[in-house]
């Protein structure tokens, strides 16, 4: 066997000082030489543990070999065989806990940079083949109609998979643009919206019809959809309802949910106000509450909108932070300040109702709780005041109840998640499947895509039988 190369090929990023003031993509991607150099490190293990670590089972050694062989169309084909949205996954998947963690070289601390290679292949396709490259023979229409609700990662994948199998798919989206959290949540500098729309265009090129501005549960119920001739429904409406801490002062002006702040900035393009009509008021001293990816995104958006000081306030220590390492590092490089083991007690405002400060507790870690992480405990008498003029609460989200409220036989669990079979995504309601955050609560793009893929398979089995 050739000597193992443990030099992971780095990917260039925009300089932190410069990128902290623009919304352009932070990571710049591999050049062809870099991609080949990284691909050449792959051991092509016959057991391909990386594929087993991938929620959508991409033939990872296969597409890496195609890069090495200079056969890019083949790399694209292998990737798209299992993943309809590689340009997105290559950017936002937590590879370090999935394929790259499973890589044989991970034990040596230098797993193949699978995510970067996936991104390279997707970007190559976008610039060289166009998203709408001719498909193999279009599938034979089955005459079966499926309604997919929600056009985020789960809905896009379910739609694409079902359309590829010949079913007639209509995708319903509540907002004015398709893409769900990929459009309203994840910022431009981490996931350019042009890439999302290219992948949406790919899904429509498969014959999927998208109905925008359609709030299922309001303008039409699930029962009405079934009655109007849909044979099956897939729910991929995510976890879009923001949570708050329910502490005094939380409704003061200048306190946003992360959903609101990111929606204004990303979806409504408030960072281009007044060219775009939607405003956002960004403070000079901004605190973001939470330790997940959404908190990092919010903090980095606030910085880019001109804040002088941006704090992440998180009640546990860095080790327990749910955000990706890479994003924590990016945030730190850009100058985001971390106030760890700190938790808000209440918000303080002025006479006109604007937030001026947060009274915080210092925290310490106790025994592990049900999440397996050490429980944060208030240090009595540790209160201090942090002066801020803007707060973003990135405290997690739960499923939007609009559909469940109008569908009594769709059973939900605590926190409003829809009860569905873990493998097939089948819900308690006849002809209805669900997958992604609506079932699991807020999780990752790729796990939503994996659940959607499995549900699509089960829906197809069902449709064949009727």
């Amino acid at each position, binding site marked *: 066997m050739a000597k193992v190369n443990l030099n992971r090929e780095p990917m260039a990023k925009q300089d932190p000082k410069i990128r902290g003031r623009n919304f352009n993509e932070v990571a710049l991607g591999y050049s062809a030489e870099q991609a080949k150099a990284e691909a050449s490190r792959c051991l092509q293990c016959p057991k391909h543990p990386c594929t087993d670590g991938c929620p959508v089972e991409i033939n990872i050694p296969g597409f890496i070999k195609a890069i090495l062989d200079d056969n890019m169309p083949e790399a694209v084909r292998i990737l798209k065989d299992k993943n309809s949205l590689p340009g997105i996954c290559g950017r936002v998947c937590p590879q370090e806990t999935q394929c790259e963690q499973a890589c044989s070289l991970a034990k040596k601390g230098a797993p193949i940079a699978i995510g970067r290679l996936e991104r390279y292949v997707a970007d190559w396709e976008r610039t060289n083949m166009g998203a709408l490259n001719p498909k193999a023979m279009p599938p034979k229409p089955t005459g079966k109609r499926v309604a997919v609700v929600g056009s985020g990662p789960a809905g896009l994948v379910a739609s694409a998979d079902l359309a590829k199998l010949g079913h007639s798919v209509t995708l319903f989206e*509540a*907002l*004015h643009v398709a893409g769900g959290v990929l459009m*309203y949540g994840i910022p431009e500098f981490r996931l350019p919206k042009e890439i999302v729309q290219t992948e949406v265009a790919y899904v429509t090129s498969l014959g999927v019809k998208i109905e*925008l*501005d*359609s*709030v299922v549960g*309001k*303008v*039409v119920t699930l029962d009405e959809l079934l009655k109007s001739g849909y044979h099956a429904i897939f729910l991929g409406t995510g976890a*879009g*309802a*923001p949570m*708050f801490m*329910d502490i005094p002062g*939380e*409704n*003061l*002006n*200048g306190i*946003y*949910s992360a*959903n*609101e702040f990111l*929606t*204004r900035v990303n979806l*409504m393009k408030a960072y281009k*106000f*007044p*060219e*775009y*009509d*939607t*405003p956002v*008021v960004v403070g000079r001293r901004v605190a973001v509450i939470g330790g997940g990816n959404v908190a990092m995104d919010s903090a980095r958006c606030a910085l880019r909108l001109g804040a002088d000081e941006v704090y992440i306030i998180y009640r546990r220590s860095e080790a327990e932070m749910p955000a990706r390492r890479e994003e924590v590092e990016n945030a730190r490089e850009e100058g985001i300040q971390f106030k760890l083991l700190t938790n808000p007690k209440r918000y303080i405002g002025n006479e*006109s*109702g*604007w937030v001026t400060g947060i009274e915080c507790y210092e925290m310490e870690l106790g025994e592990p709780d049900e999440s397996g992480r050490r429980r944060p405990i208030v240090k009595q008498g540790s209160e201090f005041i942090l002066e801020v003029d803007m707060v973003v609460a990135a405290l997690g989200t739960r499923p*939007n*109840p*609009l559909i469940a409220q109008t569908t009594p036989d769709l059973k939900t669990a605590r926190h409003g998640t829809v009860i569905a079979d873990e493998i097939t995504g089948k819900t308690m309601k006849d002809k209805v499947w669900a997958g992604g955050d609506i079932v699991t609560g807020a999780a990752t793009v790729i796990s939503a895509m994996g659940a959607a893929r499995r549900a699509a398979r089960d829906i197809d089995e069902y449709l064949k039988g009727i």
Partner: protein
Amino acid sequence: MFRIIYRETLAAKIHLFKMEAPAIAKKAQAGQFVVVRIDDRGERIPLTLANWDGKEGSVTLVFMEVGATTFRLALLKAGDSVADLVGPLGVPTHIEKFGTVVCVAGGVGAAPIAPIARALKEKGNKIISILGARSKNLLFWEDKLRSVSHRLIVTTDDGTYGRKGVVTEPLKELLEGKEKIDRVIAIGPSIMMKFCALTTRPFGVKTIVSLNPIMVDGTGMCGCCRVSVGGVTKFACVDGPDFDGHQVDWDLLFARQRTYLNEEKRSFEQWQAQVGKRC
């Protein structure tokens, strides 16, 4: 795209649009709203439905020019379209037979209250409506409200039409009168709704108000529209917009409505300048 079938100017800077929106028209109920976005540059604003026609497939919106988006909307003609119209959103107004209901409409609130009064009347309630405006040139739909009411009282602040004064004066007289008032519904500027609620509170008459905080998506996703009702935070878009006026934290609502005063002014002026140049 959603086409404007018909438009009309009802009063000074108050306009009516009938929009082609068959899916929304089929499901609409009194008290619900839609979110409108004019074009790709536009913001999303909520407008309460003034009417709808399931057969024709249309919904009717009435709005006053107060800022950038309503100014831009007013420039549109019949046959033009807006990019997005989402709805019907919000919980419909609770309609049942209460007995005697006073419907108080202030200014542009005359539009959303008309279908509510109609639905209440159809349920067998006795409807007494109070329609108020600052001045005669801002009054509209007097006839429409009369047709869905058993009795109509019109007021103007400056006395240019109807009774001189504000809507809370006849409201108070009704509450003090012989007839038992079972419910009050007040829709209009927030300050007017607040004073209606203050007026009815000593009489213990349940008073429903339709709150109009700033919204973005209108589907419960962002929490911009949070209001405090009975000490509990609610999202007006999905928990409302109707709430018990005696339980609403009005000062919080007023403060939150002022969040973007500076930006709204800047955006409005920019559009006015831009349109002025074009003309």
